[in-house]
């Protein structure tokens, strides 16, 4: 058994909150840069602003976006790790509270969805744990803004709807609300599982590196097909028109019930803030 002190987890999470919110991942910046045409259009100017913003944020140590988001954590805990002190959930939450306070990040969480009093700590984080082989802890953080989360959708399709049904559902979701989600978007899609797990699949899909291929050849083709169709919707950067509506489409699947075809789409804005650490 390898011991990991909860205090070490807390301080790593604290640092990660700043890192994730100040630095645009290289794959995202490179993808945006590859789409710049230098044609002086409003749309092109938006892409340039995104790149310029990333430079200012990194240099000035200021958040890329004021919506520093709900802090989402995807945790893989090795079966030969023993966490001493606090448990993993409270360690991550303490790290979030300290990090968001210390690094001047916005506190965007309210205690109650109807009363809406701010928790003033950005706690609680959304934490998803998975138990794996080994003696390490892998933690991926995704700081997820509210605007793009609001553009997300879930639908319980039936088996006869098939891939075409999923595709129409995703296209309709992007068409309806994609413009408000700060395009160019990353579109995470979950297919299968059940009502509860399909949303998680869609969120997990957002963690993929831009430019990476789906391990399934079939789904790799479907991702390309959907990306092409989304970019034909004409939404464009910030909804102002053009062909650059999405940077990528990523699909995660899971086995499901013989009666069901759950589908979910989790929309990610261009400020796709994520990072992985291993302890």
């Amino acid at each position, binding site marked *: 058994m390898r011991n990991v002190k909860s205090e070490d987890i807390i301080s790593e999470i604290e640092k990660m909150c700043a890192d994730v919110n100040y630095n645009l991942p290289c794959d995202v910046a490179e993808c945006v840069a590859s789409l710049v045409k230098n044609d002086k259009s*409003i749309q092109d*100017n*938006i892409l340039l*602003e*995104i790149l*310029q*913003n990333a430079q*200012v*944020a990194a240099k*000035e*140590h*200021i*958040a*890329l*976006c*004021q*919506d*520093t988001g709900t802090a989402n954590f995807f945790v893989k805990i090795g079966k030969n790790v023993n966490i001493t002190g606090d448990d993993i959930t409270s360690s991550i939450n303490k790290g979030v509270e300290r990090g968001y306070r210390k690094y*001047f*990040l*916005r*506190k*965007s969480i309210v205690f109650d969805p109807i009363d*809406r009093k*701010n928790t*003033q700590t950005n706690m609680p984080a959304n934490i998803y744990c998975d138990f794996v082989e080994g003696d390490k802890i892998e933690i991926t953080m995704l700081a997820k*803004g509210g*605007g793009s989360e*609001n553009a997300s959708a879930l639908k319980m399709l039936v088996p006869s709807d098939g891939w075409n049904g999923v595709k129409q559902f995703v296209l309709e979701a992007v068409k309806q609300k994609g*413009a*408000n989600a*700060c395009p160019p978007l990353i579109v995470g899609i979950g297919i299968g599982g059940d009502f509860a797990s399909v949303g998680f699949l869609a969120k997990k899909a957002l963690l993929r590196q831009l430019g990476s291929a789906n391990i399934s050849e079939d789904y790799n083709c479907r991702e390309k097909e959907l990306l092409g169709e989304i970019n034909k*919707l*004409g939404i*464009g950067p*910030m*909804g*102002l*028109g053009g062909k650059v509506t999405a940077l990528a489409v990523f699909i995660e699947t899971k086995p499901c019930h013989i009666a069901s075809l759950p589908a979910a789409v989790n929309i990610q*804005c*261009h*400020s796709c803030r994520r990072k992985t650490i291993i302890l």
Partner: protein
Amino acid sequence: MKLTLETLINNIHDYRAGERIELSGEIYTARDQAHKRIAALIDSSEKLPFDLRNSCIYYCGPCPAGNDKIIGSCGPTTSSRMDFYTPKMLSGGVKILIGKGNRNSEVIESIKENGAIYLLATGGVGALFAQKVKKAELIAFEDLGPEAVYRLSVEDFPLTVGIDCFGNNLFDERKKCF
């Protein structure tokens, strides 16, 4: 084109959807909960946190200011969530709205009726906007945290006219192209 808030308000008919401007002057942040409170104060004829007449509302909930900074990241939030309250704000005298995304038909009608204008700021580039803020003061609803009302003095805020005072809408122009 660089211009001040006063110049824009006094010549509001001269600016058309699609035009890019760099705006300087005093603007007020207000988003979901601040709108709810201001609307309630209007309904009960109570004192408002700032004079709405000829004012500019920026849909923004900034990050806190760092140690040596005026303000944290401060880009726009989605305007349509404020659509419900906007006609009331415009009737109260607000002339300029800044945010991101399209508005509903009631808001567009109200913009026309009140000779107002809706300006678009790029979402997700709040660090850039923070560089354009020269002064930030908390003026109301501190308990709302990021949703409190701040008075910001901004210089050369990069914006695009989204809906002009005639109701021309940049989002409609976009649809025509596709």
